């Protein structure tokens, strides 16, 4: 054993204790740093001498050679981290939903005097008053004023819901940017970590930073991580790779042509749709494309249905100035073209027909047996659906069968007992709302019986995928036809935004119709039957396809929104409880305990002092040998 071996042992001890103290100091400094995991120095005894071979010295062994700091590792439970990453997206998903449903609830909790419900009640009351005084100018003015209040409250709700939709759209874009930023940072860190590990080091702080970024990423979307290959840390989203080693893929937002002007999330490199579930981004996309869209569609359907029913009566009744044939409510049409022709793909050529409603030429009786059979084909939620009819069916049975099917076309008989087919909102975002897409009949119910189509079979079907599709309707192309099926061009997207009182009625108050024509073609004085019939719409089951009155619709809407809000809050609190448990567990393992670190510092300090004393003793012993032995 060498003379100076003792000093070497002392030196190693000093270094190891200094490293331990530095690490403890690093832990204390970063006690409040987000995502920091406490680090520990792994001290290991140095290889002793002598090795058991023939060249060893003839002295008792093995003699210890001190210690050194083998590595600095962080205290982290990877399994717990994986569970937190797997669960965190649920917490932020419900948190986002709860936050936005609070906003949606505020839209429905409007003050009573401006709510749709109360303005609609007053609207019905004004018609009731007009029916009692059909000659009154003042009552007519009241009908118009209350009608204007009603359309304003409908528009206000639509504006509020659309505003939330726009906010969601902006948030989606911001979240996509944030996600891309995190992915790029993780990829850069992966690169540095691999290089550091190749040098034999433990890049603890870099790994902490990476874990923190993964944590934040897991709040945005449902991600999974893969550490099986230590050189290639991977992050997956929706089954696709987001980060692989030092490569990061990014998402992008792309505008959608049809619809509300929102954008969809796609992969930047392939431009394929990205299906994001979970996390705040998944919640935002679902809120925008499902929840808010459903609320707006529901409002539009209510508006279109109720306006249609009022117009149906008003159009067939007479004003005090003998005007007839006027709609009370009007809509802004999707296109100005009278046949509803529209250039859907934006290439400058009209290629589709946007028609909302057909009315047949023949008057039908609800309880009459039709005596014919066939199959109608109408557009549905996913593709076309078949609705059969049989000779023993009554007209009512056939209408109910159409309305109970999954079709996006509903049927009813109007005031003149003509069959009306009209389009509903579309469940798929690829299809436009309030546009009839396909109507076909293999038999004669829609052809000769109801007077809607020109002929049977696929060749005479109405299909919106062409311009002038209305030529398939009865009597449209026949010159001198006695009567032709009527049709209405589809309203612009979001009819609730544009619904208004007919300007002809606003300009001449006496055009508000309250009477029906008598056999001489004029209205009798004091006839308020039409006004009374309009007032009675209040209690009619108007939501076609569901047995609901307008009051039921309002009550159900508010209840539904309230329940969705409660569901979001209940689940959010539940997830908070789970995540608090998991995070608490993680902090107890990886968190810095200042008391523990201070106790360690004192321990290492004493160790350092003892090592220094040891070096001093060895030094004085060597001094004795050098300066005093044999002098």
């Amino acid at each position, binding site marked *: 054993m060498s003379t100076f071996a003792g000093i070497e042992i002392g030196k190693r001890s000093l270094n190891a204790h200094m490293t331990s103290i530095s690490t403890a100091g690093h832990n204390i400094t970063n006690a409040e740093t987000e995502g920091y995991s406490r680090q520990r120095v792994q001290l290991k005894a140095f290889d002793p001498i002598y090795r058991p071979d023939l060249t060893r010295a003839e002295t008792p062994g093995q003699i210890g050679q001190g210690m050194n700091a083998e590595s600095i590792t962080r205290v982290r439970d990877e*399994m717990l981290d*994986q*569970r937190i990453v797997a*669960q965190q997206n*649920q917490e932020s998903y419900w948190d986002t939903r709860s936050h936005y449903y609070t906003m949606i609830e505020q839209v429905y909790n409007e003050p009573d005097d401006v709510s749709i419900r109360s303005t609609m009640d007053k609207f019905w009351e004004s018609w009731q008053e007009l029916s009692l005084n059909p000659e009154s100018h003042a009552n007519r003015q009241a009908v118009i004023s209350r009608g204007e209040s009603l359309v304003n409250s409908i528009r206000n709700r639509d504006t509020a819901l659309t505003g939330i939709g726009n906010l969601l759209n902006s948030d989606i874009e911001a979240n996509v940017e944030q996600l891309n930023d995190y992915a790029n940072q993780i990829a850069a860190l992966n690169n540095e970590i691999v290089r550091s590990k190749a040098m034999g080091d433990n890049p603890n702080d870099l790994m902490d930073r990476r874990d923190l970024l993964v944590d934040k990423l897991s709040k945005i979307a449902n991600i999974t991580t893969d550490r099986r290959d230590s050189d290639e840390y991977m992050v997956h989203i929706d089954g696709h790779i987001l980060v692989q080693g030092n490569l990061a893929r990014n998402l992008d937002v792309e505008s959608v042509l049809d619809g509300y002007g929102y954008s969809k999330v796609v992969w930047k490199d392939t431009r394929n749709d990205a299906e994001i579930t979970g996390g705040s981004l998944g919640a935002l996309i679902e809120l925008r494309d499902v929840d808010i869209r459903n609320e707006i569609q529901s409002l539009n359907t209510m508006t279109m249905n109720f306006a249609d029913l009022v117009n149906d009566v008003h159009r067939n009744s007479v004003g005090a100035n003998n005007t007839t044939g006027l709609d009370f409510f009007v809509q802004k049409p999707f296109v100005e073209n009278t046949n509803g022709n529209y250039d859907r793909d934006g290439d400058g050529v009209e290629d589709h027909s946007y028609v909302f409603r057909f009315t047949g030429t023949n008057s039908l009786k609800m309880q009459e047996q039709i005596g014919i059979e066939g199959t109608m084909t109408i557009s549905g939620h996913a593709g076309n659906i078949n609705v059969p009819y049989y000779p023993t069916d009554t007209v009512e049975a056939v209408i109910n069968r159409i309305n109970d099917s999954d079709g996006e076309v509903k049927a009813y008989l109007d005031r003149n007992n003509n069959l009306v087919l009209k389009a509903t909102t579309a469940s798929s975002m690829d299809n436009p709302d309030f546009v009839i897409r396909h109507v076909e009949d293999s038999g004669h119910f829609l052809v000769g019986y109801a007077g809607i189509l020109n002929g049977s079979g696929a060749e005479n079907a109405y299909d919106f995928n062409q311009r002038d599709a209305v030529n398939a309707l009865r009597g449209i192309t026949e010159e001198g036809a006695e009567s032709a099926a009527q049709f209405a061009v589809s309203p612009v997207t979001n009819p609730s935004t544009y619904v208004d009182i007919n300007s002809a009625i606003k300009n001449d108050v006496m055009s508000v119709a309250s009477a029906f024509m008598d056999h001489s073609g004029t209205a009798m004085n004091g006839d308020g039957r039409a006004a009374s019939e309009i007032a009675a719409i209040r209690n009619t089951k108007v939501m076609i396809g569901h047995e609901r009155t307008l009051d*039921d619709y309002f*009550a*159900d809407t508010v*209840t539904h929104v*309230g*329940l969705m809000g*409660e*569901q979001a809050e*209940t*689940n959010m609190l*539940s*997830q908070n*409880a*789970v995540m608090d*448990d*998991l995070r608490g567990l993680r902090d107890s393992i990886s968190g810095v305990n200042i008391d523990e670190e201070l106790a360690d510092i004192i321990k290492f300090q004493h160790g350092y002092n003892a090592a220094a004393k040891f070096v001093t003793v060895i030094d004085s012993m060597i001094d004795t040998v050098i300066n005093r032995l044999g002098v």
Partner: protein
Amino acid sequence: MKDIHSVLVEQNTVLDEIILGQEKIHQSVKTKDWVELENNMALVQEKTLCFTELDSVRENLSKNIKLDNECSKLMSDLHAKLLKSKINNEALTKYISITQNFVQGVLDNVVPQRRNVLYSKNGKIIKPRPDSIVLNKVL
């Protein structure tokens, strides 16, 4: 003989108690108070049986009559509360399944079990017996 209005009112009251019981069950699961959990579950079970009986009475009474406005409102409230109860159930089920997955994850790491199907040399399926775990701590 009860009339439909009183049956609906009673159903609403029972459902309110069921919802309260569900919230207490959820709380006792979170705080791991198993005695309280047992008690609340027994209470909710009792109330559920009561609700089911009342519902069959309501169904019989409402067969041939049309509900007036007040009864329609009570029905709507009942419907809304049933949905709320369903939501509470779903939230509790999710909490339990998340916690279960976590514990399962720990056990899988500690004592990995083979999940794939094993066959004997004659082609018969052998179900491997799960390894037993001894916990040397009183919980």
